[in-house]
Structure formats: structure tokens, C-alpha cells
């Protein structure tokens, strides 16, 4: 979208608010706690159903505006640090999981991350596992499915490039139910600004002509979803 189109789009109704995170290391836990507390004072959680209804009807029916807490890439520290904070503050986390990263053997995760511009915190995890485990993804999925309110919705993308992993197929094999899949038509939620900040660095104008990421929802999926070359086909679990 160019500036004029964005102006018209913003003028057309309330925006969707999101706060995008990537790594969430424990040394910043107090900062995240304060930020989520401030957000929870002003905003309500946004579930998958809430956003799908908003996109389908054009109306936001809750009394307070919603905020999407987005956690990108499937970092282990999202589970360890942010998940309990989200629960404390009653907010929903949207975990956009690069399933190729999660499916990568521990010994290869640092190399996989470096090859896909997935920033890691040096020596954060002595055991070398920097990505979510499939058990953790399943736990996030169960939390999200349990009540569709505070907890988590997990988003998994198919990412290749790891020699020893089954990538997204492995996620599907893990028994995770698909709640949304890319399709050929629908609404696309363009992150007005995520041209930068994706995967923890400047991406606009970078290799591959990175465009803003696309959030796909049931009945509102988009064609050509691509997020920085990390994920091509994306599936919401």
C-alpha cells in the first residue's frame, strides 16, 4: 500500500493494535511485565475468533479496544518468559512459530537461526535449544483451545532448510489441529509497519524484497503470504 491507500484504510475504521515481540529473554522479564501490565489496563485480549469476527463484520464488539500480542519465530524464551506474564495479565499471545526452526535438531538450531536471520541470545540456553519444543507448542495450543480467552494461540509456519528436521510436516504429525490455512482469497491484514522489525532486524528492502507479513485467519486468508523468506506457507494451529 502507498501512503494514500494507507490513509484511506486507517480512516475506514478502527485499526488493529498489535505489539510485536521476537526474543523475550529473561533479563528483560520485568520490562515485559510492566509493558503487558500497561497494555492490560487499556486493552482487552484478542482471540482468533475475535479477530475473525472483526474482519468478517467490520465491527469490534468488546467494550475496550483489543491488542494482539505477537511473538514471532518460535523462540523458547517466549514460552519460558512471556507465557506466564501473558497469563498473569489476562492477555492472549499469538505465537507465530517457524515450524522448520522448531523441528530442527538442537545441535543445528544455532546454525539454522543464523541462516534464517533468527537472532538468538548468546549462551541463553546451555543445552543449546533455542526454539520451542513440539511439546511446548502443543501446550500453547492446548492453552489456546481450552477457553479461547487469555492464554495462547499458536501460529506455525513451514520453514525449510534444516537438514535433520521434518519442518512443518513434523508439526502436523505431532497432532496439532489446523485452525487456519492459507487460501487463495480473503482479507489480508497487512502489518502497516512490520516491514521493519520482523525477525529482530531491518528487513525492508532486504534480500528477497521483503514485504510486510501477512496474518491469515479462517475465512480471511491471503494468497502469497510470505514473511521475510522465513515462512512461506503458513498454518495457524
Amino acid at each position: 500500500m502507498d501512503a494514500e491507500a494507507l490513509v484511506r484504510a486507517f480512516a475506514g475504521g478502527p485499526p488493529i493494535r498489535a505489539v510485536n515481540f521476537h526474543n523475550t529473554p529473561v533479563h528483560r522479564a520485568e520490562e515485559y511485565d510492566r509493558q503487558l501490565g500497561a497494555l492490560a489496563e487499556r486493552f482487552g485480549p484478542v482471540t482468533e475468533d475475535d479477530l475473525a469476527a472483526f474482519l468478517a463484520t467490520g465491527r469490534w464488539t468488546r467494550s475496550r479496544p483489543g491488542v494482539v500480542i505477537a511473538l514471532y519465530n518460535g523462540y523458547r524464551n517466549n514460552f519460558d518468559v512471556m507465557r506466564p506474564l501473558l497469563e498473569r495479565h489476562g492477555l492472549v499471545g499469538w505465537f507465530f512459530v517457524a515450524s522448520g526452526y522448531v523441528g530442527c535438531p538442537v545441535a543445528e538450531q544455532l546454525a539454522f537461526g543464523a541462516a534464517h536471520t533468527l537472532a538468538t541470545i548468546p549462551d541463553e540456553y546451555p543445552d543449546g535449544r533455542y526454539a520451542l519444543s513440539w511439546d511446548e507448542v502443543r501446550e500453547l495450543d492446548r492453552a489456546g483451545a481450552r477457553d479461547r480467552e487469555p492464554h495462547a494461540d499458536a501460529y506455525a509456519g513451514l520453514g525449510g532448510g534444516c537438514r535433520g528436521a521434518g519442518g512443518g510436516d513434523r508439526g502436523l504429525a505431532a497432532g496439532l489441529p489446523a485452525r487456519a490455512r492459507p487460501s487463495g482469497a480473503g482479507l489480508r491484514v497487512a502489518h502497516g509497519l512490520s516491514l521493519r522489525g520482523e525477525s529482530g532486524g531491518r528487513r525492508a528492502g532486504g534480500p528477497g524484497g521483503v514485504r510486510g507479513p501477512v496474518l491469515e485467519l479462517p475465512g480471511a486468508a491471503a494468497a502469497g503470504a510470505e514473511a521475510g523468506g522465513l515462512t512461506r506457507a503458513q498454518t495457524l494451529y
Partner: protein
Amino acid sequence: MINFSLPPLPEEEVDARLADMERLGNRDYKEIGVPMFLVAEDLTEGARPRSGGDGSGRILALLLAEGAEALRTRRPDLDAEDIARLIEALADRHFLSLAAPSFSRATELHPETAS
């Protein structure tokens, strides 16, 4: 019909906004939360227009239009990154304030009414 327009931003304010965009762009994105305003793009031409809300969308539209015009005085050919950085700055400045309830509806300011 009243035809009105705001005067252009003073040069100093354009400089300050550009400096703020530069400051934001130099943050360590990999560990921080970055607020964003998102808009829905209709790919079906059949979606219903958004409606209702608190007017924050129109406020943002005005702020974006003003900012884009100001930025064009320095960079006539705005590219996608310029727009992204402009919206990043708008979100940084207005994300929380646009969510505040109106004065009369802020229950903590009117405890007697709230009770």
C-alpha cells in the same frame, strides 16, 4: 462546505520527527516489544467496511497524512520503508494515548458516577 487545511509543519518539527524515526529505527528489535497499527486490506472486494469504534482510525489517518506530507518535503519519492518508519513513529507516540477512554468515561476520574 468548509475547505480547510492545516499549515505545514515547521521545519524544526520535521527535523525532530525525522530524528525520532531514526532513533526508533536504531533500536535493538530482537528483544523489544514494538507497537504497531494494522489495517485490513480487502482482497475480495466483498468485505464489509469497518465501522464504529472510537474515531481512532480517522485520527490516525490525519496524522499519517500530515506526516507523509511533511516527509515528502525532504524525500519526494517516499518508499515503503519511509512509510513503515512513519507509522512506527506514529504507533510509538500514540499507541497508548489513543486507547485512553474519554474524560467523562474514565471511571477512576469520576468515582461517584462510577459507583
